[in-house]
């Protein structure tokens, strides 16, 4: 039921908006073009940030540093009951959505989606966001360099999300 609602959501919203526009006697295609033009400019504006960030993540991942970091972090992670197979996922989750999804699917394949690790990974992916990616894209777009308390706040929210995920999965 829930899945059905989620699947119907996007087509429903689009047809509702377009239908509403037509009934309000708006030139809907002209309106659409004006918005889409703005959207293209926006994406073009954030593309440099995207390239810089993903290249840095790719460098770090290919160097094997993240794997080593996961091994170093095994002991402190065990203090907060974070299972070691989830450490790379938690780290990568902060910078890249697609890379984190890849790691979550890897956990599904290795331990099964219904195992403790599979459920914990699913819930972590669902209740957290790509912290560094979001900050770079959003603040980069308006040239903010002094981000004040955004990073501590975002990391706190993410840590609470991860903690709750592991508790709820267990």
């Amino acid at each position: 039921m829930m899945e059905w609602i989620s699947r119907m959501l996007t087509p429903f919203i689009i047809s509702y908006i377009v239908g509403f526009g037509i009934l309000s006697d708006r030139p809907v295609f002209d309106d659409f073009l004006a918005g889409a033009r703005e959207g293209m400019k926006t994406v073009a504006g954030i593309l440099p940030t995207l390239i810089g960030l993903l290249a840095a993540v790719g460098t770090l991942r290919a160097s094997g540093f993240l794997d080593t970091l996961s091994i170093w972090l095994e002991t402190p992670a065990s203090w907060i009951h974070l299972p070691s197979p989830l450490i790379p996922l938690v780290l990568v989750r902060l910078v890249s959505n697609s890379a984190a999804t890849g790691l979550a699917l890897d956990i599904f394949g290795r331990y099964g989606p219904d195992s403790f690790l599979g459920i914990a990974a699913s819930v972590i992916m669902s209740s957290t966001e790509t912290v560094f990616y979001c900050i770079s894209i959003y603040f980069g777009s308006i040239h903010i360099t002094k981000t004040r308390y955004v990073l501590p706040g975002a990391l706190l929210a993410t840590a609470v999300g991860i903690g709750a995920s592991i508790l709820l999965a267990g």
Partner: protein
Amino acid sequence: MLNYLWGLMILTGIFWGAANGNLDAVTKGLIDSSKESVELGLVMLGIMSFWCGILEVGNRAGLVDWLTKKAGPMMDFLYPGLPKDHPARQPMAVNMIANILGLGMAATPAGLAALKALQQNRDEEKDRQTATNTMCTFLIINISSLQLVPINMIAYRSQFGSSNPMAIVGPALIATFCSTLAAVIFCKIMDMKSRRGKAVPKK
């Protein structure tokens, strides 16, 4: 902060790769990622332009105004200092609602528009590189994740043969609620601190 972080990521990657003798892999990773980021950018260009177009249709038909009014109480609670007629109010409400519904590709352009409006209409004109409290709250709430139903993860789970792909909906909802609650409390505390004039913006 991001300047140091980015530099550190690149340098750590390269030096670590060199120290472990897989510098070739690092170079390949770097080139491949830049290539992939453009591919991702192209996908975003299509989907986000489409959503921006649809949102503009809704905007000009008056739907967004209606939505902003409906989200009013929540907005007043989160951003008490934001005037009712602030130009950032609309995109901020759209961003929040799109995030709750899990429409990330529609949420991003609205979020970017909101920040642009906040930057253009800020009170203190002097230090334009420093984030305002409203910007900080907006970003932290965004990053705390607002999505009610994690439709992507449900789909992946069924692909991997889960006996109950939907089992994560309840836990995800609670975990999302916890992280957002932590974000709201944190932002409220920071707001109070800076109102008292105690908080000195660092860096």
